[in-house]
């Protein structure tokens, strides 16, 4: 029965989306359904996590068709961790959207599409078949297109054109890579691919295939030369949407890279050097971009790019310590980035602007809220013992161990850049006195909202801040988890056995 329930993280958001579609014109019900459903998703994710943590990898063959012929769902520790994080962010964004989003946008179906997006995310994490991963990616990006354009303001449409074009291009490149891979091996099941790719003699063809995959996932993950769509579009949607984008969507690209470059493409110098160089420049360009921007949402967008570099660096170094650092960083980053974009939404409602020069006076006017917001901000910097500190420690130690000095230097530099950027945000937005400026007519300030809505906006920030604090002070647990994930990624035998084990005798 446990196996059957592996499909539940996909079916629950799907059923929720259907229920929400039936309630299309009743926004009040939609809010309730969405929040209750998100709590249920969280419970389910925790339960699934517990099962996998205790019992090891679970796999499910949909429709009863045995792997490698059928569609496989696999829940290893990395996958269930990501599903759990998705559920946490999903709940937070659900609450935040109920409080902050105007009814006009909700009427165009924010909640149903949001839950379809969560289904796509869960599907991508649990997929054990690379074509299925592609399909879930598409579910995800179609939902994200709609969420991005919801409301149809000029800025949103302009951002959406860029976002759409590059993400569609990434899908086509992914599809091309799939075609090459299928031509090479004749299978699409990831466990089966892991076995068969190792047997191919023309390694240069495998490298080309890996490179195409890297470009496809790289666009989605916003790595160095391929990130331009991200800062052009992430500052345009409403904060609830930006939170789920910033927290989860780019990380799916990183997740896919982690899967593909540990399970399928065994390391050779070509792939390793490529990842190292790209990680280096991603850190560099993201940090530079964040330092030079004056719009708080744009600053956070560039910080996403910068911090993708940390995860990529861990993947590039490919030792258990560094990989554990990358996984730990991803866990920390998903929670904090989602929180930051919600935080930017609240500061916008308080000060009436996103421009750092125009902001100010937050600490003087709302000291308690400011202290709450300090938690995600300083977690991001990684001031010890807050949550960003521990994974960086692993990454740097891993880098020193293997002698990747330039990358270690760049990790340190990017950390200092983050510190500088956050210090500037703090000084400008929280400590400075707010200058007078012309405000748009009819702007609804934070104080004008009813108490319930204000609580709904602050509750998710508090929730995610609590999770961040847990990651910081319960770092031992997270580190154990990250090390177990890293060990599973480096030794995929258990994964392969969980998928193919029962069918091995059938193979000719």
């Amino acid at each position: 029965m446990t196996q059957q329930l592996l499909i539940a993280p996909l079916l629950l958001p799907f059923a929720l989306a259907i229920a929400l579609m039936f309630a299309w014109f009743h926004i009040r019900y939609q809010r309730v359904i969405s929040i209750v459903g998100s709590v249920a998703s969280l419970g389910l994710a925790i339960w699934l996590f517990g099962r996998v943590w205790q019992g090891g990898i679970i796999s499910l063959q949909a429709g009863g068709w045995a792997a490698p012929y059928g569609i496989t769902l696999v829940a290893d520790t990395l996958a269930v961790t990501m599903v759990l994080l998705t559920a946490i962010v999903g709940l937070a964004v659900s609450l935040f959207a109920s409080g902050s989003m105007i009814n006009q946008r909700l009427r165009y179906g924010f909640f149903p599409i949001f839950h379809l997006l969560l289904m796509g995310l869960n599907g991508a994490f649990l997929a054990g078949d690379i074509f299925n991963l592609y399909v879930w990616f598409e579910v995800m990006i179609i939902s994200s297109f709609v969420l991005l354009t919801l409301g149809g303001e000029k800025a949103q449409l302009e951002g959406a054109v860029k976002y759409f074009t590059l993400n569609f291009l990434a899908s086509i490149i992914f599809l091309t890579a799939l075609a090459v891979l299928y031509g090479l091996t004749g299978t699409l099941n990831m466990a089966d691919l892991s076995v068969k790719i190792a047997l191919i003699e023309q390694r240069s063809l495998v490298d080309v295939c890996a490179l195409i995959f890297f470009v496809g996932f790289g666009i989605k993950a916003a790595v160095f030369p391929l990130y331009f769509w991200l800062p052009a579009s992430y500052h345009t949607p409403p904060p609830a949407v930006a939170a789920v984008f910033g927290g989860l969507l780019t990380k799916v690209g990183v997740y896919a890279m982690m899967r593909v470059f540990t399970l399928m493409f065994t390391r050779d110098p070509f792939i390793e050097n490529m990842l190292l160089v790209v990680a280096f420049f991603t850190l560099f360009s993201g940090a530079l971009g964040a330092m030079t921007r004056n719009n708080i949402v744009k600053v956070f967008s560039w910080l996403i790019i910068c911090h993708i570099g940390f995860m990529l660096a861990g993947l590039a170094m490919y030792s258990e310590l560094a990989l554990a650092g990358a996984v730990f960083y991803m866990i920390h980053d998903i929670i904090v980035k989602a929180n930051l974009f919600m935080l930017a939404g609240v500061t916008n409602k308080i000060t009436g602007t996103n421009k750092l020069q125009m902001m100010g006076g937050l600490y003087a006017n709302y000291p308690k809220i400011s202290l709450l917001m300090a938690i995600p901000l300083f977690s991001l910097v990684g001031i010890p013992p807050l949550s960003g500190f521990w994974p960086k420690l692993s990454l740097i130690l891993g880098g020193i161990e293997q002698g990747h000095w330039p990358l270690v230097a760049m990790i340190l530099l990017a950390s200092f850049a983050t510190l500088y950027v956050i210090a500037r945000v703090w000084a400008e937005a929280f400590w400075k006195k707010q200058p007078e400026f012309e405000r748009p007519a009819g702007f609804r300030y934070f104080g004008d909202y009813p108490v319930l809505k204000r609580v709904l906006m602050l509750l998710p920030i508090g929730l995610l801040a609590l999770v961040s604090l847990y990651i910081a002070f319960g770092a031992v647990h997270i580190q154990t988890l990250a090390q177990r994930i890293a060990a599973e990624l480096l030794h995929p035998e258990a994964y392969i056995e969980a998928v193919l084990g029962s069918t091995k005798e059938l193979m000719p």
Partner: protein
Amino acid sequence: MEILLAIMIGVLYAAGIYMMFRRSLVKLIIGIILLGNGANLLIFLLGRLVKGKPPIIAEGSKYLSEAYADPVPQALILTAIVISFGLQAFAIVLIKRTYKVVKTEDLDQINTFDEFE
């Protein structure tokens, strides 16, 4: 046949990328459609072309004994076509809305919110 298809896929990719590099929104969509078709054909080609050999296991046998037409690429292409159908429908509505709001279809002109700030 393989060579013909390979050339055609190359032409589709080239034409698609060329169209994407133009500055017009409509040509961008055309380019994306061409690229998608090229990718679908590539899957079809790389799944090996076999004619008139359905993958049916003969009675009494356990495995397929001779070359057969692989059904997987066709299933993949069908899925990919359905997905790109949805995406293209969205894209067309998107460019229509964008054109109405921005009042231009020159991609260089739709950068008003991208300025350095």
